[in-house]
């Protein structure tokens, strides 16, 4: 990893559809050098996947997302890892993190309706062994995701020329 790798990562994080040729011009590399570096970053699991950021609210999909916090009794020898892996296997769980503070694990869960999310939590998550307490926070509005603002900023008036 060097400064050039970091630049490539920043450019790809912002737009993963940039071609090696375009990236090459931007980062002052040949397209082949870019391919080589990206392959290395993929093999090193630094680049995990190439995803699309979608404003689902605007897509009017009607989906619901919630942040679920869990208090968990850790397991001897394994800590939080085994229960975390079990939770991560559910496709409804879009993100899962171990956090500091009052709660231990934090999940991002999505479903078609509020009822779906509630049922998932009450039927699958809450009854699991070692889970002591859950707190469900329905997401009402997303302002920013993955560094991208979801609202249009009124750009200030910019004059056409200045010398």
């Amino acid at each position, binding site marked *: 990893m060097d400064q050039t790798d970091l*630049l490539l990562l*920043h450019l790809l994080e912002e737009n993963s559809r940039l071609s090696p040729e375009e990236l090459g*011009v*931007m*980062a002052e590399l040949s397209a082949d050098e870019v391919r080589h570096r990206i392959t290395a970053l993929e093999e090193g699991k630094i680049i995990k996947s190439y995803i699309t950021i979608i404003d689902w609210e605007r897509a009017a999909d009607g989906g619901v997302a919630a942040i679920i916090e869990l208090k968990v009794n850790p397991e001897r020898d394994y800590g939080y890892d085994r229960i975390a892996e079990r939770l991560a296997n559910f496709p409804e769980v879009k993100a899962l993190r171990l956090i500091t503070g009052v709660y231990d694990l934090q999940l991002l869960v999505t479903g078609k309706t509020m009822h779906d999310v509630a049922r998932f939590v009450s039927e699958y998550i809450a009854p699991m062994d070692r889970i002591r307490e859950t707190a469900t926070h329905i997401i009402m509005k997303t302002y920013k995701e993955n560094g991208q603002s979801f609202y249009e900023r009124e750009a200030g008036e*910019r004059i*056409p*020329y*200045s*010398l």
Partner: protein
Amino acid sequence: MMRDFVSARARTIPPSGIRKFFDLALSMEGIISLGVGEPDFPTPWNICEASIYSIEQGGTSYTSNRGLQPLRESLSIWLRQHYQLSYDPEQEMIITTGVSEGLDIAVRAVTDPGDEIIIAEPSYVSYAPCVTLAGGVPVPVQCREKDHFRLSPDHLMDAVSKKTKALIINFPNNPTGAVMRKEHLSAIADIIRDHDLLLISDEVYSELTYDGGHVSPATLEGMRDRTITLNGFSKAYAMTGWRIGYLCAPRDICDAALKIHQYVMLCAPVMGQVAALEGLRRGEAEKDRMIQEYRVRRNLFVEGLNRLGFSCHLPEGAFYAFPSVEKTGLSDLEFAERLLTEEKVAVVPGSVLGSGGENHCRCAYAVSRKDLAEALNRMEHFIHTL
């Protein structure tokens, strides 16, 4: 019959060379402007936040003439760390209302009637009028494309006369993006010392030096006592509207500039000074992120220009490309006007930026990559319709 009240001096100052273009552009919709010499980024939010908070706390009054003491202190340390410059924040520094004011008070502090001030061109448009207003005589010296738009010592020598008092340079340069490395500056410094001249160095684009780091002329041997260093926050921190610059000079010159500053400006706006201090203290990461983005855009845009057949050297600093439009067969003024009216792309014709600017156009690439790509598409279309 009433007298003409406008002074002869004010009358001699030329009007803006782009007034016509400005008015045209304002009457049009859908323009992509590569004509603005300012960052497209808003000021980093922590900087805005610091200023808003200080206003809420009642920080709305005058500051000392020199500017807020903590700002000068921080700046003094920052200049030492980044450029190896050493200026006493109590005696050798003034916070100015943008570099524009810094330039004005610098020129007025050192110019006597009839003094010749050499100006390296093409350049920002206010140098010559400032000299004229101060009673001096502006003497242009041309930086040429074959020298990568650096100031050549030979050409400087040709411009020096017995009346020469000072030289004004601006590197990294608006409009060419040229950078003077240490060896280039040393050759100029030799002439300045040999002829007992003063250097006024406008370094407002210093942080936008893409390779090798900025060299401040005052750090060259024997130059500190004959250099006025001007710089500011507008370009590097995306703070154009805040109007904060600074002037650093040896004490006697700084004292003279301070007298003018206190009578005409009193102090720079306090909200801007608070913002600038936050920029120095916690603005480095955002500044570097913006500079990295300018570099990416430079690479994309200059590659695009050369692909279209405009010859354009790679600018080593600032955020301007300065391609030649010669191959279109149009003058730079015709090119800029037709590109605006036919393709809605605004660029600045080089000839309004002084000698050496003819047949070139200044394109500011401080616009989004998407707009840069669209501007290139429109330029391509324009060439095909010629």
